[in-house]
């Protein structure tokens, strides 16, 4: 494949940096947020891909990541892309996070962000081009040195070779840096790939097993203080007064300052900050707060769900369709608020000087954080430096359009006039909002005797994630937040139903909500795949057979269904007491079938095995895909079985891992991952495994017990 770089109008500079050759690309920006599909195509107006690599004289190749490493493996995958084109020696690869800068803007999203399961596909061209361009420069430098044509040279394992002569990339880096950049690069054909497609171990293992990997939490430098913020106990409450006399007496407490989110205690270390915070006497004005009760909230949502909302998809006439039906399924599904609860509680270190504002944190959204910090400090965004650290899990929580934890840390540092690291306790994290929104779905489906839907009427009720964010303009169309209805309004089942109507009630609330691993699919797939099972049961169909028929024109769904079914030996009896459930769902450009093998004993659900089949298009690192599938099963299963954020008198009832429960090792099923061989366009991997997990499990529970689980978490419902 030849890509004409000039046409794409980039290559800004090829300059000699402090440590060697730096290759930088810059393409003029013309993007609409989340024009995902369009952006990946070369002929569409291109967004701004950029890439950096550094080649040092000692042959080290440093790959600079435009995306944040949060467990999903970009620290390995993106270097694989670059190394393949560069013919790099894998042992010489080092990796670092990019700073916050326009150069590193997401090729599809138009801001610097890690999310939406996009990192690999959105960088597939950019990192390969960077590698190819660097290789071309190194070849030219060698050709000049040896006075031979480039065509007489080849590259291998970090060297340019000519007959028996050889020069390492490190030896050539300085000469290469002075050369004019080529107007074209030729990318390799898949047959020439050495890294892409090969199971590759992670490059960040060594530092993550010996304690040296640096997370935001680990930032320490002379003069840096620790701060904890006392925040409102109810969303929407404001501070009336604070008595900080006792807090200031705690040994190690330095200052107490007010910030917009509450009262910050600045101390020499975490323990003093925590004790100081506990000693504050706080009076909150909760008059205008949202004193919600979960039970009441569910009822309100249910009432709304009984009426149609703003139309998200519509065809035919569902009333007519429903009267023609042989059976009617009428069901209501309830899903709770969920906290991301990444393993590393939130934190953010800030140092403000005359030169600007420096921030150390694990973030998924550098651009917004930078802009928010700049605004608070009253300086230009370029004056805000973000040092992205390893993220101790993200799952969406560290990509906040409102830049909550970064803004707050900047406010604290400003008010305290000291370099500070704000640290959240686990309780702060669980109470801190930005949850996966609670949702109620109500569906009436009329089916014929074969289980095929004739009419599908579906109403969703829940808060909009996009409302009030900078993405509202792109993501909310005619009153419908696309992320609220994804997986329903665009479902192949719904679209194939002659009479269908999907509508949405977007509820207003002071509870802040946010994307949580797999966003809208985290609730919609559970509902849709449960409904399909209900239809199969009502029409006495095998759940797999019905799905195969309904999805007969969707080869990629089908391929994962068939692969999973074959590997699970669907139809063959399981050991006594063990039952299967199946679910398939498309999200983030990938297709996943999960088959759960489950037993229920005295109300206890045990998931023995999950068979996962994924078609995520071309696979860059099969080992990375497997890891992410295991991760999705664990994350999705914990939520399905146990996790819930609920409210009493406006207060969150959970506080830490004893009552916000997540999956533990003894509950982890055997996860068998199977990849559908595919050369299709790359899809996502970090999220798509999750949506079908819960319905596969609850469908198996139905097979085992005859009880249809229509609300999550499963909790004690079978007791």
């Amino acid at each position, binding site marked *: 494949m030849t890509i004409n770089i000039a046409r794409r109008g980039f290559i800004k500079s090829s300059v000699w940096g402090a440590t060697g050759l730096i290759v930088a690309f810059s393409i003029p920006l013309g993007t609409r947020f989340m024009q995902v599909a369009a952006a990946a195509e070369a002929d569409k107006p291109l967004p701004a891909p950029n890439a950096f690599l550094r080649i040092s004289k000692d042959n080290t190749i440093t790959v600079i990541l435009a995306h944040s490493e949060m*467990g999903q493996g970009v620290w390995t995958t993106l270097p694989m892309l670059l190394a393949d084109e560069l013919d790099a020696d894998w042992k010489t690869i080092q990796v670092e996070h990019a700073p916050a800068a326009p150069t590193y803007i997401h090729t599809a999203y138009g801001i610097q962000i890690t999310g939406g399961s996009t990192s690999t596909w959105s960088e597939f061209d950019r990192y390969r081009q960077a590698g190819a361009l660097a290789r071309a420069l190194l070849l030219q430098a060698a050709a000049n040195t040896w006075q031979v044509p480039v065509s007489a040279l080849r590259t291998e394992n970090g060297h340019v070779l000519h007959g028996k002569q050889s020069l390492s990339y490190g030896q050539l880096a300085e000469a290469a840096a002075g050369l004019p950049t080529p107007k074209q690069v030729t990318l390799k054909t898949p047959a020439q790939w050495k890294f892409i497609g090969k199971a590759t171990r992670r490059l960040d293992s060594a530092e993550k097993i010996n304690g040296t990997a640096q997370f935001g939490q680990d930032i320490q430098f002379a003069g840096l203080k620790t701060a904890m913020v006392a925040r409102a106990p109810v969303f929407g409450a404001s501070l009336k007064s604070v008595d900080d006399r006792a807090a200031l007496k705690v040994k190690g407490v330095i200052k107490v300052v007010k910030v917009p989110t509450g009262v910050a205690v600045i101390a020499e270390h975490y323990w003093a900050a925590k004790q100081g915070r506990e000693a504050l006497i706080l009076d909150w004005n909760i008059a205008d707060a949202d004193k919600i009760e979960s039970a009441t909230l569910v009822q309100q949502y249910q009432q709304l769900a009984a009426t149609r909302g703003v139309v998200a998809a519509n065809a035919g006439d569902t009333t007519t369709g429903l009267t023609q039906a042989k059976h009617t399924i009428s069901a209501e599904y309830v899903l709770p608020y969920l906290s991301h609860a990444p393993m590393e509680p939130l934190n953010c270190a800030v140092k403000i000087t005359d030169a600007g504002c420096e921030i150390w944190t694990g973030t998924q959204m550098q651009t917004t954080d930078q802009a928010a910090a700049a605004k608070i400090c009253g300086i230009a965004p370029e004056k805000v430096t973000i040092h992205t650290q390893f993220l101790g899990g993200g799952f969406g929580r560290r990509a906040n359009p409102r830049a909550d934890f970064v803004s707050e840390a900047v406010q604290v540092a400003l008010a305290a006039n000291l370099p500070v690291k704000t640290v959240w306790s686990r309780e702060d994290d669980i109470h801190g909002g930005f949850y996966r929104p609670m949702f109620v779905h109500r569906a009436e489906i009329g089916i014929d005797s074969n289980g095929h839907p004739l009419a599908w009427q579906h109403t969703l009720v829940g808060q909009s994630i996009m409302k009030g964010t900078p993405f509202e303009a792109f993501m909310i169309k005619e009153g419908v937040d696309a992320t609220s209805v994804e997986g329903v309004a665009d479902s192949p089942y719904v679209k194939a139903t002659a009479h269908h109507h999907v509508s949405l009630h977007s509820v207003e609330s002071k509870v802040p909500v946010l994307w949580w691993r797999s966003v809208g699919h985290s609730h919609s797939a559970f509902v849709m795949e449960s409904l399909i099972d209900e239809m199969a049961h009502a029409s006495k169909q095998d759940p797999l057979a019905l799905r195969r028929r309904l999805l007969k024109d969707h080869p990629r769904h089908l391929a994962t269904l068939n692969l999973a079914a074959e590997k699970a030996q669907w139809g063959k009896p399981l050991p006594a007491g063990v039952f299967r459930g199946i679910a398939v769902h498309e999200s983030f450009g990938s297709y996943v079938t999960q088959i759960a093998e489950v037993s229920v004993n005295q109300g206890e659900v045990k998931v023995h095995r999950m068979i996962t089949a994924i078609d995520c298009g071309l696979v860059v690192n099969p080992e990375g895909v497997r890891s992410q599938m*295991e991760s999705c099963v664990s994350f999705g299963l914990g939520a399905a079985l146990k996790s819930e954020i609920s409210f009493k008198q406006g207060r969150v009832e959970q506080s830490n891992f004893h009552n916000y429960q997540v999956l533990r090792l003894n509950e982890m099923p055997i996860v068998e991952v199977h990849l559908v061989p595919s050369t299709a366009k790359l899809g996502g991997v970090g999220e798509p495994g999750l949506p079908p997990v819960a319905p596969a499990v609850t469908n198996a529970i139905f097979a085992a017990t005859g009880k249809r689980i229509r609300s999550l978490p499963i909790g004690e419902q079978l007791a």
Partner: protein
Amino acid sequence: MQLSINGKMTELDIPEDMPLLWAIRDIAGLNGTKFGCGMAQCGACTVHLDGQAVRACMTPASVAVGKKITTIEAMQDDRVGQAIQAAWQSIDVVQCGYCQSGQIMSATALLKQNPNPNDAEIDAAMSGNICRCGTYQRIRSAIHSAAKSLA
């Protein structure tokens, strides 16, 4: 307060009730041991006290006086720790990595007491260590593999 951390006597000026976790992290400056919950629910802060796995977030530093504290930073000099780390790397266990210091400390303590644990014994020893990235399946096989390599 005098604490022996990784074989080194260290004098720390800290209050009696300060949890060992913060003494190790904020005072001694050893950052490998992690904070995840502060209430013995997640295992991120696991260290060894005279060879025993303990949750440093709920252990007052004063309890550790006169005992040997071992943290993740010392595992590369420990025979069992090395085997665990090697297995972790070859099975590609880590994801975000934040829980992994604690996982490795728990796993190492387990293998020291029980060189060949079965699955139920691994469940018992490791279920106090949460991994939000869900690396559990690989943790289990890495423990088995390390046990084999040490046999």
